[in-house]
């Protein structure tokens, strides 16, 4: 059999894998991407079914341990108050993400200089700005220009609707004189690049049957494949191989039938996310790299960051959006930049959650006692259903080496590859920030006319942002990849997912993950003649 050899091997077809595949396609190199999951069929998405809320907590759950597809890998979250949320398939996490699409701020790249915490990034906002713009065009971002919380940035399409819930809370923010703005959203509010416009299904985090939400299976991938990139599904990579000269040689993977296959490559790019990437590197041991590939710093898997989430919601005496409309609505960055008088460093973003579906609202409010059971049930339910709204607080998580991903000694995926194990403790800074975010959100809800306000923080199921486990830096002793994504230890191995984040900022990460992937791709293209020097 002829050797399976390619110029560039990409592992993972999610947010970042798709972006770099598309960008590198114009080099005309032979590029193959291996993805453990399947292509999605939009008609299978829950929103095409009446029992969409039940389906969303079964085969489309964002918890891989609940979803348990053969294309998933289990995660041991026992030693973490926050458990991993993801999706494994073409599009990766973007299949289930809400599409909240904020950028980092200039200050996010300079946290050590400005606030004396964590580390500065080796790049800055201005370096990424053109790649943010390019990614915005490829994904199709809706929003409104002029947000005073940000440097000027373009909006590709008009913002998502304010709706009844957004209007209610905007009034609350205005009463307090606090910032709010329509959320930048990876949701097409007009027909865009062959995609239909949003019709307010309201089930974005279960997959968008309309194709309005920018998941990379319908944004980058069709373009990348038309440009010649080959995407192979149901290919689960067990390890990255190493040549005698210490360079990455390719990968060993299991195909759909569970047969072991090998592919060799001149360049290997890992895009498996902040948990999948350290898992793969740690499982890629060899004589040259006994502690895992590219791990001479010992930092592979360390500095795991989530965003601890608070969730605060109240009931109103009038009909609101309920689950109708995109999950995204408006956000507030009133408390984004550091103000030490609040008792913590760094800050957070509020993102308005319009409302939840009737089944999940009724279930949680019956349990909490807000909706009565028995003879008063119907009257009581009618005072709550479609009448709750609130917000999440997305708190910046600071890196801490004790928070880490390792390989579980027992738990394995269906192909026998060790599962990731998390050790994570909520920091005192995060705890204070969560408390503060709950207290201020309560004030906002009250100002808007809400009552029976409930909250939680951290959200135990909210580990959807996975960052920091192979961080970027100029010093090989304190970072895994250099300032353009190349591993310090292995000069033909690149990482482009959330693992390379130095800090987490107080915003959802995907726009930055993809901007970084495009930036790494450009850095590679500019150096093609001497990429490995």
């Amino acid at each position: 059999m002829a050797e399976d050899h390619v110029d560039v091997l990409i592992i993972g077809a999610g947010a970042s894998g798709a972006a770099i595949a598309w960008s590198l396609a114009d080099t005309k190199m032979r590029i193959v991407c291996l993805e453990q999951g399947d292509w999605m069929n939009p008609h299978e998405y829950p929103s095409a079914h009446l029992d969409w809320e039940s389906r969303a907590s079964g085969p489309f759950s964002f918890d891989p341990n609940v979803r348990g597809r053969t294309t998933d890998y289990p995660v041991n979250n026992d030693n973490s108050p926050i458990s991993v949320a993801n999706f494994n398939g073409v599009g990766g996490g973007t299949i289930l993400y809400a599409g909240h699409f904020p950028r980092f701020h200039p200050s996010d790249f300079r946290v050590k200089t400005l606030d004396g915490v964590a580390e500065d990034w080796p790049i800055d906002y201005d370096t990424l700005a053109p790649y943010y713009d390019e990614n915005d065009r490829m994904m199709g971002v809706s929003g409104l220009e002029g947000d005073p919380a940000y440097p000027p940035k373009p909006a590709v399409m008009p913002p998502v609707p304010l709706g009844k819930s957004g209007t209610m809370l905007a009034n609350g923010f205005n009463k307090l004189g606090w910032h709010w703005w329509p959320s930048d959203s990876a949701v097409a509010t007009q027909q865009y690049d062959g995609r239909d416009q949003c019709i307010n299904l309201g089930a974005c985090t279960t997959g968008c049957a309309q194709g309005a939400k920018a998941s990379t299976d319908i944004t980058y991938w069709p373009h990348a494949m038309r440009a010649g990139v080959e995407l192979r599904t149901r290919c689960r990579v067990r390890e990255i191989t190493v040549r005698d000269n210490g360079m990455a040689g390719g990968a060993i993977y299991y195909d759909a039938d569970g047969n072991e296959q090998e592919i060799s490559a001149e360049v290997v790019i890992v895009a498996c996310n902040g948990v999948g990437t350290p898992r793969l590197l740690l499982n890629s041991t060899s004589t040259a790299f006994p502690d895992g590939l590219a791990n001479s710093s010992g930092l592979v898997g360390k500095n795991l960051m989530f965003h601890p989430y608070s969730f605060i919601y109240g009931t109103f005496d009038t009909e609101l959006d309920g689950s109708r409309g995109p999950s995204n609505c408006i956000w507030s960055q009133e408390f984004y930049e550091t103000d030490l008088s609040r008792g913590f460093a760094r800050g957070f973003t509020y993102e308005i959650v319009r409302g939840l579906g009737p089944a999940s609202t009724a279930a949680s409010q019956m349990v909490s006692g807000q909706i009565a059971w028995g003879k008063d049930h119907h009257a009581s339910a009618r005072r709550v259903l479609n009448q709750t709204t609130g917000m999440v607080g997305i708190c910046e998580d600071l890196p801490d080496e004790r928070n880490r991903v390792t390989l579980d000694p027992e738990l394995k995926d269906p192909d026998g590859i060790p599962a990731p194990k998390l050790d994570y403790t909520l920091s005192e800074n995060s705890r204070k920030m969560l408390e503060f975010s709950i207290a201020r959100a309560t004030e906002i809800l009250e100002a808007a006319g809400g009552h029976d306000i409930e909250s939680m923080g951290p959200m135990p199921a909210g580990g959807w942002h996975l960052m920091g486990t192979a961080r970027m830096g100029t010093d090989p002793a304190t970072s895994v990849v250099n300032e353009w994504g190349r591993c310090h230890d292995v000069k033909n191995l690149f990482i482009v997912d959330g693992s390379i984040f130095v800090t987490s900022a107080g915003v959802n990460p995907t726009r930055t993950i993809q901007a970084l992937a495009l930036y790494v791709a450009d850095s590679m293209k500019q150096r093609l003649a001497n990429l490995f020097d």
Partner: protein
Amino acid sequence: MSDLIGSSNPLSDEQKHVLRKIAGLLIPPSDEHNLPGADDDDIFANALVLAQSNATEVTSSLDALEARANEREGSSFAGLDLDAQTAVIEDIFGLLEPVVRRITSAYYQDARVLESINLKSTPPFPGGHEVEVGDWSLLDPVKARQPFYRKV
């Protein structure tokens, strides 16, 4: 729907009977809204489907209910009259969370119920929903603010 209650359901017939009784007590029919209770054939069939995933949660709740009924009234739950059954549920409502969640979820995904609370009785897709664009002049005070991101 009844074909969904397969023999693979981990609940015994007795447990199904008790579960159905609880469903009717938690969400009774409503004449005012012309709605069935959660013990309606189709709705309960769906509740049983939901009970199949992570079924041990449900059976432990039912075991706790039986234990309480015996402790309090000296009888199985099924053997009690309506008032006593209501009192037992009241007593251990917190332990019944897995049961409450499944019954409520099944109820509020039924087309008749959705329609009665002004929601579409068909799947969200196709068709979607109307959501008002809103009045963007609400943003005027925010637009009047100077940029407040930190310059570096």
